[in-house]
């Protein structure tokens, strides 16, 4: 892995928020990123074996965004992740077994086989589940943070959207609502250069998507989305601002989708050189190098983390494959709450 020449982390690693991180915090982030990458690679091979129900959308290359951002939340805060934010779920304690059952359509999964992909939520953990319709979760996350204002718990809600999803009407309606009511809300645009096959110049004509912040009267930040510490720092400040009554922040994290839109897509439409350039900035390798350069990740620890992660994934895949599928008539259950 480390054969490739890796760019330096250009994070403002000296920002107060980042300096306040303990070694354990850093290693937890590293571990979550590794877990995300390896788990998704396992999904890819299960997909190729025909074991996944439906498609597989990986967040490969975007791990720094989802892990760095979710790490900035408090336990009581609300996470509303999108389809490439598996990393954020792992940060919040998602179990690989659960996630694997979800992908394999098992009864043991968090949606009991009712839904797939990343579509689960856990209300006890303040995690909201997405629907496929991009942007639809934005006002919902805003509403969750409004509840946090109303009940005095000041729960900050963090939600994500892609460069593509940012074109949907609910991006506008949700962010505007959040701004007017100054709810504690953080919206992260994961600008990974493509929406399926659509490049950014066919998606928007502004220079940067963060240019939209001023039009809502919210704070805007741009960040290197392949630098987990930079992402963490920006998000931490946004979360604190939100909690202190400073209102929403719109963060644009620039990154790159390194695999196809989903595993059936070979992304022939993405220039090879572009992928090559971004490969130099791989968020995991960069963070690994940073940790190594700062003597925070001795090879023994690195190996141990790797071993643990892979073992957990093996266990999860094994568990999921042994778990029962739901029985047909369970389809009738749960349409209504009591």
């Amino acid at each position, binding site marked *: 892995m480390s054969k490739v020449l890796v760019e330096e982390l250009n994070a403002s690693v000296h920002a107060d928020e980042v300096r306040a991180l303990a070694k354990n915090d850093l290693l937890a982030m590293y571990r979550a990123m590794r877990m995300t990458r390896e788990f998704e690679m396992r999904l890819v091979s299960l997909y190729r074996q025909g074991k996944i129900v439906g498609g597989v959308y990986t967040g490969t290359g975007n791990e720094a965004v989802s892990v760095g951002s979710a790490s900035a939340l408090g336990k009581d805060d609300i996470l509303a992740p999108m389809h490439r934010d598996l990393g954020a779920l792992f940060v919040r304690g998602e179990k690989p077994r659960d996630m694997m059952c979800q992908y394999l359509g098992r009864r043991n999964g968090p*949606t009991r086989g009712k839904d797939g992909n990343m579509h689960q939520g856990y209300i006890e953990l303040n995690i*909201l589940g997405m*629907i496929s319709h991009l942007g639809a979760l934005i006002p919902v996350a805003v509403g969750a943070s409004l509840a946090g204002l*109303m009940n005095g718990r000041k729960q900050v809600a963090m939600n994500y959207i892609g460069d593509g999803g940012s074109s949907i009407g609910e991006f506008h309606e949700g962010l505007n*609502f959040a701004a007017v009511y100054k709810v504690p809300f953080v919206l992260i645009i994961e600008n990974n250069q493509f929406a399926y096959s659509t490049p950014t110049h066919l998606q928007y004509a502004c220079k940067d998507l963060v240019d939209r912040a001023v039009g809502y009267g919210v704070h805007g930040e741009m960040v290197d989305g392949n630098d987990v510490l930079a992402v963490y720092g920006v998000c931490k400040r946004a979360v604190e601002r939100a909690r202190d009554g400073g209102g929403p922040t719109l963060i644009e994290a620039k990154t790159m989708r390194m695999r196809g839109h989903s595993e059936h897509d070979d992304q022939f439409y993405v220039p090879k050189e572009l992928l090559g350039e971004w490969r130099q900035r791989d968020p995991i390798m960069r963070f690994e190098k940073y940790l190594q350069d700062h003597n925070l990740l001795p090879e023994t620890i690195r190996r141990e983390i790797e071993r643990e992660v892979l073992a957990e994934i093996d266990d999860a895949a094994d568990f999921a494959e042994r778990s029962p599928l739901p029985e047909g008539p369970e389809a009738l259950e749960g349409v209504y709450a009591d």
Partner: protein
Amino acid sequence: MAVMTYLEGINSALREEMRRDERVFCLGEDIGVYGGAFKITKGLIEEFGPLRVLDTPLSESAIVGVATGAALMGMRPVVEMQFSDFITCAFNQVVNMSAKIHYRWGARVPMVIRCPSGGGVHGGPFHSQNPESWFFHVPGLKVVTPATAADAKGLLTAAIRDNNPVMYFEHKFLYRRIKDDVPEGDHVVPIGVAICRRPGKHMSVITYGSMVHVCLEAAEKLQAEGCEAEIIDLRSLLPFDKAAVLESVQRTGKALIVHEDTRTGGVGAEFAAIIAEEAFESLDGPVRRVASIDTPVPYSPPLEEFFMPSVDKVLAAMQDLAAY
């Protein structure tokens, strides 16, 4: 018992539920200081303040989405659409987000969307629609359609206490035009239970909302001809009281379905289909429907009158069915 208008019934349910349960709050356009386009929420912001009666930006998807998010976190939002016609702007939020969450990942979404609906007020194509049938086709939603002040209050109270998203279609034409006795105190009309508004042995008329009054008037006239129509007010469309419908039709042998919404693909089709399937052996005549014609709601009074069901049209269908 207190005599109230339909509008007062709605206001009273909101006020009492907001007093009873601090998780209940209202949101919508112009519902605060202005008290709503129809003054349904009048006085609420004065009593409960602007964080429980939220004047929102003009953005229906955001309004419904925000309500869903707040409901997920344990609040019990009541949304006002300024007109039911605007629910189409929040369609995705309702049918794909709110309606499906419980089925998918088990969380409760206790919320109500109040939709002032219906014609007869010369509102034209965009201020007169009856959009219930779209939602009737969405598992995970409940749909209620009160016809009286007492039901307006009782069904809204039930809807607010329900742990599912409930579409509450309140008929604009009835707001100030009808008045009836509303029980004092906690008044809950259970969702899914129909009521017989008029017993009769010669035919069953299945209806709801404002058409209940039209059917009652037609039934009065029919009586003069020695024919007794039974009027079943469904009150809830989803779930609906299938047992009550079948029991009545099996007894009378004839069924007429009346709704103000347009005919093709309206909810009446489902009731007719169920009757044709499950009460087939009892039928002494074809299942008839009276509904609006299949056009947008026209604006000019003669056109709107032609468009909508009326006492005369319902009476004619009753006579026709009686003669069968």
